[in-house]
Structure formats: C-alpha cells, structure tokens
C-alpha cells in the first residue's frame, strides 16, 4: 500500500474532522440547516469510502454506522437531539483516535467501538414514530443538498443530478445567473421548484426551456462556476513544516549577513556598494516578512476546537454557554500558536467551569440564561492581544484573599496593601485554586500558574480583570514571532549584550551631578525614584560578575525592564543601539545560566549574549518575591513559635507609655525628623508636607490608647521622629518618641497580641518589646486613610 496515499488520507481526514466538530455544533444550534448537514454527511462518507479502499475495516464500520444515522437525519426522518449530537461527536472522537492509531501503527487499532456503533444504530430509530423504514444501506454518494434558496427538500429524494452538486465555496449556478442579472430570482426559484417536483434536467436546461435565459448566458455562468472550482483547489499547496523551518533559519542567516554588509557599506566610499547594499537591505526585509508570513497561522485554527470544548463542558456541568469569537483571522507564528494552545484551552475550560454560572443562578441574577464566552484577538504594538471574557459571576476577591492566606501564599499585611486587581491576579500563584470542589475540569490548583509560566516562556504576559457579578477577562499579550526579535544593545564590563525590547519599558539617564543624590539605598539595596515610585536597581556588572567599568562622565544609565509584572532598573555602562537579532540557542552546558536567553551574531560578526530579563530579575531576587513571600508566610507561624528561626531586621523605637516597640525594617521606607512647626492640621489630623505630598501623621502611642493629652507640651521644642511607612503608593508618617536601634533578631513571639495594633510581644535584645502591626494600627487610628487608599486604587483604570 502506498504510504503516500495513507498520509494524504490522514492529513485530509484530520482537517475534515476539525470541520466536523464545528459543523455539528453549528447544526445543533440550527437543526434545520440542511447545507451543514449535507456537508457533515459528505465528510463522513468520504472517510468511510477512503478507508474501505485502504482496508481499514473497523474504521469503515464505524463511519458506516454514523453515515446511516446521518442519512436519516438528512432525509428528515429523525430529528437531531442532544443525544444524537453527542453520539455523533463521540463518533468524530473515535475516528480521530483510529486515525492517530493508523498514523502510529498503520492499523486502525484494537479498540472496541461496538458500543458506539450500537448507540449510533439505536439512535436511528429512537423515539420518532414518523421514521420511515430503516435504511440499512447507506445513501448513495450522489445524494446532495437541496439547491440554495430552498430548505424543504423532499424526503428521501436523491436530489438533483450529481453534476449539479457543488461545494460550499462554489456558487450555485442559479445564484450566478441572478448575480449576472440575466435571470430573476423568481425564475430560478420556479426552476428549482420544478426540479424538486421531479424534473431530472439541469437547472440551466429548465431555465433555457422556459425562455428565462439565453443558452449563452448559462454557458458563461457554467464557465464562471468551473473557474471558481479550479482556482480554489489550485490556490494553495501543502508545504512541509520542516521546509518552512529551514527557510526561516536561512532567512535568519541572511538577515545577519545583511547586517554585516550594511555595516561594511556604511564605512565605504563606493557608491555602487552602498546602493546595492541598500537594495539588499530592502529585499531581505521583504523576504523576511514573506517567509514569516508562511509560518503565520490564524488563531482561528486553535479556536475552532473551542465550540466543541465549550459545548461538552457546558453540557457536563448543566450550563448553557454560547461562544463568540472576534478576530479569528489574527495571525501568529506557528511555534507560538502551538505554545499558547494548551494555556488557551485551559482558560476557556476554566471560564466555563468556574466563570459562567448555572442557568438558574443567572436567571435569578437577572441575566440571560445562556452564558457568553467571548474570545477576542487583535494586533497592538507589534504584539497580539488575546482576551477571554465571560459574563459570569466574576472572581470573588474576598475568597481569593482568604484562600491565599490559608494556603500561605501571601502574608496578611501584604494582602492588606493589595488592590483588588492585585488580589485577582493572585490566582496565578503556584498552588492556588478557589474551586471549592475538585471537578474533572479544573480546580486541582495546577492550572493558572502553569498558564502563566507557559505564556511567559514565550515572552508574553497574562493578567486577569474582574468585575463582581459581571464577569472576568483574562488578557494575554503575545509576541508575533520568536525567531527574529528587536533588541536593545548595551555594553557592560566591556561586553555587549542584547535585551529583547518586549521587556523594555524606558531608558533613564541620570547625569553625574545628580546621580549620587537620586540613587538611594534601602538597607543597602539601591533604588531609584522614578516618578515617585521606588525602582529597585540591578547592576549588570555586579550580577554577571564583570569588571565594573565606570562610565567616563559618571552618568548612570538605567534600563527600566519589566518581567513577571515586576519592574526593575538595570544599570549598564552604555546603551548602544537597537538591532534586529536572530535568537540562537546556547550550548547545553550554558543553558543553566538563567540570565541568558540565547546568543546572536551582531552586524560586525561578533557573538553577543541575549539577556533573559526574567532570569536576571530572578537571580537579583526581584521576581522570586512571590516564592519568598510564600515561604516566609508558610513558616510565619513556625517562626514565631520556635526560636532560632530566620533572622529579621527590626527597627526598635520607643513610643510614650506603650514602651519599647519594634517594626520590621523592610516595611519602613525612611526615617525622618520634622521640626514641630512644620506640623500642620488638616481637619482633625496632623499632617506634614513631605516631598510634594501631604503626609498624614499618626502618633503611635496615642493611637495605642495611652493618655497623651500632655504630650504636645512634652515634645515641644523637639523634633518629631517619624517612620515613613509606604503602602499602596501612599505615605503615612508614624510619630514615635525615640528611635533606639536596629537589630537583627530571630523573632519569637511569646505573648499573643494584647491590644489592637500590636502583633504580639517578643524578647529583643533581652528586653520585652511589642511588635507593631502597621496595617492594624492604621485601621485603628485612621480607618479613613485605609479607605482612601482603597478608593484610590479602585479608581485606577484597570
């Protein structure tokens, strides 16, 4: 048996099966759609015919059973029920399984499908007394759909002559005649009617006989029909993906060679060389674009499976869900399409399973019974955005908070500082799952973080937005292609590196005079104040253990990068240029160095390493935050229960009658002194002007409820000691009496909290010290401030 034929059969059938999935769903919505039904019938019939010819008898039997059912459906003898649709869909699955088997073992497998065949046979008669005598023989392949323009083809009719049968893409003769303006729709309809009444002649013949059209017009129309048919089959060819991959690699090489020649030509006086190199430049760019296009696939290719997925799932959980797609034709590189397939499927399943409510609950909430899942894809800024929106109940932020705490993913004080949006995005943390019961769909807690990791692996981002009661949107940003990427070239320690522009936010240059002032340190960690936000700085020289070479003018170049939703500034010696680079993988021995994503060859022929922004952030400890948070939160209790736990930097201070207190140094942004006369009143509250903002002051001891009416006099003439606490982008000044010390201590809380605002007491430096709970304190002393914060964050555009 010729392998080629089998291969051809497999390729063709798998395409046909995808089509079947879609068509069956379509048909279920509109059971009267005879055209779709006929198309389904034809597909199954073709599969049956071919595998009979190739000798796959099991597959043939199965397809045969399906065909019988379909022929009855097509003839209108039985109606399409959910049960029948499900049976037909499982037929599609079974055929797909067998095809897989054929691909692997060249036989249609030993799996017993007799149960399915049984079901298919049973459904042929089920519950429809009007059904005519059962057909055991499949309908002839000549059977064809009723011509366009009519839906009530006579039952059991063989339809018009086979030559008149045309595929969906080819227009029917009658329609062409009408479009040409040579026949009126009424005449065509009348002729079709005649055909249906038993006239076996061709449509054109009838029309000519009735004198409706001239024979020449019919011939012209047939000509048009023929051209359409042939151009459809000849407009595209199948190409081996490996060949495309090779082409892509070669184009990559060409781009590099082009870059090199351009660099030579730039320094050349020879105008001929300059002109031809420019021409080469243009042609290469066009070729690159063209070859990239061959690898592009519409996202619809993966979406097309979703109606089926959604239907099966929705039926499974007793929900009604409709799927809508927008931007199916948006194209992405093949490798990327493959990479996002699983994450997307997971998200769609999640939306149906957790997002959309049951029909009853929807009705009770005043929404249409049928839930809507909306998929949208569009290009924006050289990236593809994909949104998956459901109109379900939205994420329950309180539940997420509770869950995250319970699972020890974040600490209580961190949660308190988070905006609703940040809370919603906690679902992407490893080990998170809100589903109360584990379903067979999702809820195993290994979903969303895997989605996030996979999307980020290909340089994309994912985030979730939710509106309570209205629904949830998961938004992804995906690069168009992975092979050739724009990058920023930088120099550090005398070496050149490439930074993919996807992760690049902006470049900041701090002049020598101001560098010393504007780069501050928090506990030895350098930070830069970028528009009021603290940006942690990472020195590339230090990170890569390179010689630190100070820039000539002493200026500091900061590259603001983003990875994993975290921003940081990368300090480099020099920012050079942008260049299109071809990513080449690193040798196996070097892959373990996570700060490099690959290597590339530059215009001058030298090799440069490509920095992995995510890996860099991780090695600098910026991105791993979540994991650390989790770790610290999980052993939070243990740490307080046991001695000898991890050491923590604590700021020890005195606050009036409350005595000796301590607060984690990490939560304090700065220590400041304010002369008393700078304290102003805003309503009931004491405030100071601090860095162009109004910072409310909270007296710690007063907030703790110690009698402090006389304190104002006490501290007269002195300076106020203030701990600047930053949360949610807002500053609060905590007024204390005296700052005593900074200590590294392993915390062991001996006594639980004795009053609000205090987390408990511990022995620090051999003295009993109360641990301040800042969020708790704020809640106690200035609940309005907290609310203000929340309002401010909620007001932000999502």
């Amino acid at each position, binding site marked *: 048996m010729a392998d080629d034929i089998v291969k051809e059969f497999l390729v063709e059938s798998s395409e046909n099966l995808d089509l079947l999935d879609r068509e069956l769903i379509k048909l279920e919505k509109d059971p009267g759609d005879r055209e779709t039904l006929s198309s389904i019938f034809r597909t199954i019939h073709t599969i049956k015919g071919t595998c009979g010819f190739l000798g796959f008898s099991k597959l043939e039997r199965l397809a045969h059973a399906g065909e019988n059912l379909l022929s009855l459906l097509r003839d209108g003898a039985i109606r399409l029920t959910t049960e029948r649709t499900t049976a037909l869909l499982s037929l599609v699955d079974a055929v797909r399984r067998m095809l897989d088997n054929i691909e692997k073992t060249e036989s249609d497998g030993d799996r017993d499908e007799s149960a399915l065949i049984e079901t298919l046979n049973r459904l042929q008669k089920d519950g429809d007394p009007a059904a005519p005598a059962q057909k055991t023989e499949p309908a002839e392949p000549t059977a064809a759909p009723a011509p366009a323009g009519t839906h009530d083809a006579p039952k059991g009719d063989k339809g018009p002559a086979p030559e008149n049968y045309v595929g969906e893409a080819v227009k029917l003769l009658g329609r062409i005649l009408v479009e040409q303006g040579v026949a009126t729709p009424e005449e065509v309809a009348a002729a079709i009617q005649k055909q249906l009444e038993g006239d076996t002649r061709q449509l054109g013949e009838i029309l000519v006989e009735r004198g409706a059209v001239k024979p020449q017009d019919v011939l012209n129309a047939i000509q048009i029909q023929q051209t359409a048919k042939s151009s459809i089959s000849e407009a595209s060819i199948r190409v081996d993906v490996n060949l495309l991959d090779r082409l892509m690699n070669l184009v990559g090489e060409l781009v590099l060679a082009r870059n090199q020649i351009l660099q030579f030509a730039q320094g050349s006086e020879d105008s001929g060389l300059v002109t031809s190199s420019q021409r080469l430049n243009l042609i290469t760019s066009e070729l690159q674009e063209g070859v990239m296009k061959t690898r592009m696939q519409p996202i619809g290719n993966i979406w097309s499976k979703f109606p089926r997925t959604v239907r099966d799932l929705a039926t499974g959980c007793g929900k009604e869900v409709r799927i809508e797609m927008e931007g199916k034709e948006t194209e992405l590189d093949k490798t990327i399409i493959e990479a996002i397939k699983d994450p997307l499927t997971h998200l769609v399943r999640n939306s149906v399973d957790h997002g959309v409510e049951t029909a009853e609950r929807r009705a009770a909430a005043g929404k249409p019974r049928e839930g809507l899942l909306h998929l949208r894809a569009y290009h924006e800024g050289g990236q593809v955005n994909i949104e998956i929106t459901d109109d379900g109940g939205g994420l329950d932020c309180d539940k997420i908070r509770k869950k995250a705490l319970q699972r020890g993913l974040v600490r209580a004080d961190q949660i308190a500082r988070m905006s609703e949006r940040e809370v919603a995005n906690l679902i992407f943390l490893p080990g998170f799952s809100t589903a109360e019961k584990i379903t067979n769909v999702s809820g195993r807690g290994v979903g969303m973080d895997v989605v996030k990791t996979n999307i980020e692996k290909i340089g994309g981002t994912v985030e979730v937005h939710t509106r309570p009661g209205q629904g949830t949107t998961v938004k992804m940003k995906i690069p168009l292609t992975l092979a050739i990427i724009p990058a920023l070239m930088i120099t550090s320690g005398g070496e050149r590196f490439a930074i993919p522009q996807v992760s690049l936010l902006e470049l900041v240059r701090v002049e020598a005079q101001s560098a010393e002032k504007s780069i501050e340190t928090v506990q030895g960690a350098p930070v830069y104040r970028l528009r009021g936000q603290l940006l942690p700085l990472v020195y590339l020289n230090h990170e890569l253990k390179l010689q630190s070479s100070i820039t000539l003018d002493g200026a500091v170049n900061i590259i603001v990068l983003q990875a994993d939703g975290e921003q940081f500034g990368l300090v480099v010696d020099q920012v050079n240029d942008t260049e299109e680079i071809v990513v080449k993988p690193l*040798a196996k*021995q070097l892959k373990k160095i996570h700060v490099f994503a690959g290597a590339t060859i530059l215009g001058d022929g030298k*090799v440069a390493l490509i920095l992995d922004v995510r890996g860099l952030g991780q090695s600098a400890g910026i991105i791993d935050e979540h994991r650390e948070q989790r770790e610290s939160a999980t052993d939070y209790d243990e740490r307080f229960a046991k001695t000898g736990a991890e050491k923590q930097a604590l700021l020890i201070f005195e606050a009036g009658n409350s005595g000796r207190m301590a607060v984690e140094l990490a939560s304090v942004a700065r220590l400041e002194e304010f002369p008393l006369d700078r304290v102003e009143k805003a309503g009931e509250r004491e405030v100071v002007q601090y860095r162009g903002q109004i910072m409310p002051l909270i007296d710690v001891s007063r907030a703790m409820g110690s009698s402090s009416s006389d304190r104002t006099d006490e501290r007269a003439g002195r300076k106020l000691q203030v701990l600047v606490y930053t949360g949610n982008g807002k500053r609060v000044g905590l007024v204390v009496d005296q700052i005593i010390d900074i200590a590294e201590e392993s915390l062991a809380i001996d006594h639980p909290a004795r009053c609000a605002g205090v987390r408990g007491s511990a022995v620090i430096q051999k003295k009993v010290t109360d641990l301040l709970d800042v969020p708790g304190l704020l809640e106690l002393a200035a609940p309005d401030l907290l609310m203000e914060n929340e309002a401010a964050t909620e007001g932000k555009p999502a």
Partner: protein
Amino acid sequence: MSEAEQVCTFYLQEQFFGVPVREVQEVIRYQGMTFVPLAPREICGLINLRGQIVMALDLRRRMGLPERTADACPTNVVVRTDNGAVSLMVDEIGDVIEVNGECFECPPDTLRGKAREVIRGVHKLQGRLLLVLDTERVLRCDEKEHTETSRTLRPS
C-alpha cells in the same frame, strides 16, 4: 579496539593528545570570542563559525593544566557532538596519524584528577605516548561541574 583508527593529534603543554578524526569537523586558527559571564571556568567563550555559534572549551583548564601565557594563540579543534559543534582549544595542532589497536592501552591506574575523567586510553607510539581523549566525557563532566558552579554563584 583492534582496528586501525585515524586520530587528529594536538599538543597541550608539550604533551601529545588526540581525538578520533571522525569526530572532528574542522580545525581553525585562533578566533576572537565572546566571553560568557557566570559560565564555568573552562568555557572560554562563544565563536561565530560561519553564522553558527560554537562554544569554545579550554582543554588546559578542563584537564587541570596550568594556564597558557597571555600572548599564546590557541587553535580551535571543532568537534561534532550530539548537541552541535563544540570547539576544543589546544596549544598547537599536530598531524592526523593512523594508530592500530595493538598499541592501545587503558590509562594507567596512577593517572588521577581531572585528566583521568577524560582520557580514554594511551597509544604507545615510537618514542612517545599519545593520549586519546573521549570527547563525550570532556563535555559531560563539565555539565556536572557547572551545576555546582551555578549553585555557588546563586546565593539564595
């Protein structure tokens, strides 16, 4: 190993080494290369070999031999591996010679240290010894070492 075999020979600190010629892709003279920060010591860098990026490995460092003088220009012996080409940096290239299995012996038991890991055996030639390297092991061990290096490089 009883059949005759062709060996591409080279020198490392006046010692005579070789790798089977069928593993050698080409021999090229010294090339400028790109240093890879954080990489194990024996990896000297990356070379652009006609558009292909090839990792260069210093055999002296790999075998624990003393460093070359700064002005020395080592030669690249590019060998094929399952994971693409890798260049072995040697002091000087020798001839391709034919050896047969009769003069082959396993490395002496007294051979220790890093060299032991990578030397497959010794050919007793007239007047001198030829140490044949196992390229696979040359590259494999390096991986293990690398994980250790990277661990020490990443303080948690």
